[in-house]
């Protein structure tokens, strides 16, 4: 590869030797695309005709009044086709895949958002598609699996390890080392070996580019602070990248605080101090690992933030003090989501709601002339099962129980205790 892919001490490309030519090819395609103004133009056209870019920024007047401090603006990535910022990255990689002449894509998915986005892109581009998803996630995210299958994707439930996101990533790599000739691995976040973190950030930078311009046009100034949730880091880097050169804008990344501090209870790699630097899944960053370097279980109410590593680019921003990192606990997140739904009619994904938590904590003590911008990375209506469980809605449970009864009556052959891992 031409570049090492390091951001100071983070990043790199720790890849099996068999993938070296594949990564060379990918880097070349990426650098070429980046150098080619036509690519970005094609990308913008695709996103503005297939999804609805530019996504708007919405002034949250009710929340602003509620908190009585800074003016709260929201970047609406939830309005993207398939319901999250994931579409940006995926469509961009679709264009790159086509440039490389490949006709099959694979991807990992945790919450299912990236899987749905990739399956959608594959349908649109006419690629074959296989999605790796932890068996635990398959079981809890059936709606997403349903749509992926409808799109024609094969969804493979990964039973190994903790049967969640990181294991799906490993499994996707295993597929890739076998099928790299015709297959592109559409990594879903700003992690993994170079050039993925940089490439994904570049594609997601469309968020920040738009947002910066929109703030200037709509509000007449840049925001004092920008908030984004941090799973792998792609939506955060997407919006941050619009403001990296604006020293007066404070960038705040919000990680999954889960049940609070203590290994195993959260997925906060930067905000808490349970993580340390390591190398896994092809790159060097902060990982939640034990002294031997074994990755540890993580926890979050939001499947999309429940990941052991974090973008090396964010790790570098953290190290350099160029961004601040906080964590929001599960309870805070559900509360912030409910408040946002009720006050603004917006339904932020549980992932996105992490960013709202921190903004809500800080807005009241800011001046009313201050402006903050929250990245609403996705919408929660796809995650209704998770949200209904988080809220513990008895009517929902009754509905599901009645529905199950209906299915059981209609077909006695369906097992009523079995596991539905594919």
């Amino acid at each position: 590869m031409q570049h090492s892919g390091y951001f100071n001490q983070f990043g790199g490309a720790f890849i099996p030797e068999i993938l070296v030519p594949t990564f060379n090819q990918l880097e070349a395609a990426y650098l070429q695309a980046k150098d080619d103004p036509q690519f970005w133009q094609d990308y913008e056209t695709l996103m503005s005709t297939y999804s609805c870019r530019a996504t708007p920024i919405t002034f949250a007047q009710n929340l602003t009044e509620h908190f009585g401090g800074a003016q709260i603006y929201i970047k609406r990535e939830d309005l993207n086709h398939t319901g999250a910022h994931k579409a940006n990255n995926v469509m961009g990689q679709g264009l790159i895949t086509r440039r490389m002449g490949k006709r099959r894509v694979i991807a990992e998915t945790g919450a299912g958002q990236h899987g749905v986005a990739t399956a959608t892109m594959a349908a649109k581009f006419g690629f074959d598609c296989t999605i790796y998803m932890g068996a635990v996630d398959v079981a809890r995210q059936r709606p997403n699996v349903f749509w992926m299958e409808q799109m024609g994707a094969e969804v493979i439930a990964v039973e190994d390890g903790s049967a969640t996101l990181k294991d799906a990533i490993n499994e996707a790599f295993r597929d890739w080392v076998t099928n790299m000739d015709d297959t592109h691995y559409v990594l879903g976040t700003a992690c993994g070996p170079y050039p993925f973190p940089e490439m994904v950030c570049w594609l997601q930078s469309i968020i920040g580019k738009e947002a910066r311009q929109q703030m200037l046009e709509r509000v007449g100034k840049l925001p004092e602070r920008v908030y984004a949730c941090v799973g792998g880091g792609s939506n955060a880097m997407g919006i941050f990248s619009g403001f990296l050169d604006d020293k007066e804008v404070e960038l705040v990344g919000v990680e999954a605080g889960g049940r609070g501090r203590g290994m195993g209870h959260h997925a906060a790699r930067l905000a808490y101090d349970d993580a340390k630097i390591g190398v896994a899944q092809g790159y060097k960053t902060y990982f939640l690992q034990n002294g031997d370097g074994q990755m540890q279980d993580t926890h979050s109410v939001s499947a999309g933030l429940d990941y052991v590593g974090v973008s090396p680019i964010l790790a570098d921003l953290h190290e350099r003090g160029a961004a601040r990192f906080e964590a929001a606990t599960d309870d805070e997140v559900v509360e912030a989501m409910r408040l946002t739904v009720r006050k603004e009619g917006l339904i932020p994904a549980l992932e996105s709601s992490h960013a709202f938590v921190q903004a809500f904590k800080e807005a009241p003590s800011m001046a009313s002339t201050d402006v903050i911008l929250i990245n609403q990375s996705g919408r929660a209506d796809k995650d209704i099962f998770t949200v209904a469980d988080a809220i513990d809605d008895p009517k929902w449970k009754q509905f599901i129980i009645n529905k199950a009864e209906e299915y059981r009556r209609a077909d006695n052959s369906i097992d009523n205790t079995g596991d539905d891992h594919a």
Partner: protein
Amino acid sequence: MLTTASTTLETTMPSPAEQLRETLRARREQKELLLMTHIVLGYPNFDDSLCVVESMVKDGVDLMELQIPFSEPMADGPVILRANAQALAAGATTEQCMRFAERVSAEFDIPFLFMTYYNILFATGVEQFVRTMAEVGIQGAIIPDLPPEEGGEYLSAMKTQGLAPVHIFTPSSSPERLRELAQHSDGLVYCVARKGVTGKDTAFSSDLDAYLARCRESTDLPLALGFGVKSKEDMDFLRGRVDIAVVGSETIRVMEQRGVGAVSAFIEGLNAR
């Protein structure tokens, strides 16, 4: 932690890498195709690991890869993957693996290599890890997720300790890449027979010849071929084509399906002429 052993090497003593080269050279004079086997340390437990080493040495295995388990064995297929996970679930630690290595390299007269992922070295501290490797009598290492570009610290530590870094040749590697890998390798190089991960079938055929010729051209080191070797037929095919055959997943499969005791017969079968 570990007993004995100085960290500087007497210039007069051959380094572990030199010992490894010499051992392989000597054995190759006796035997046209050497056999390298692979086990996951601590799977299903360290006692069984020890029994397997013992029996393999007795059955004429020429050298062994000892895999220190890792939670994210990205380059391994399902069999080794699960062995890693179960070893960890049973509580295997790097420290225990080091003690195990120390014991087997003291007890058995064949070369032992470590196989593991980079984070295991990184977590301990690369230099310290490599120093300990040397101290416990390990002669080289295979780190499948550490290409030479990322391996600066590792390579210099290995050099300092006189250990053999073993790199991996693949069918998709260009001639230049093979030379580069060879330059950074010592003891032997590990040629993977095909794309993919460990533990899947490989169709051994003369299709391999061009690839192996490219490997030969790139290095004077002995060539070990792995990924999918699992029968006497495979061994017969490889004899004359490479120096070392590597049997990995199949041993674990035999052990899982027929018990530790069956490993011996399996190895004997492979080595039979």
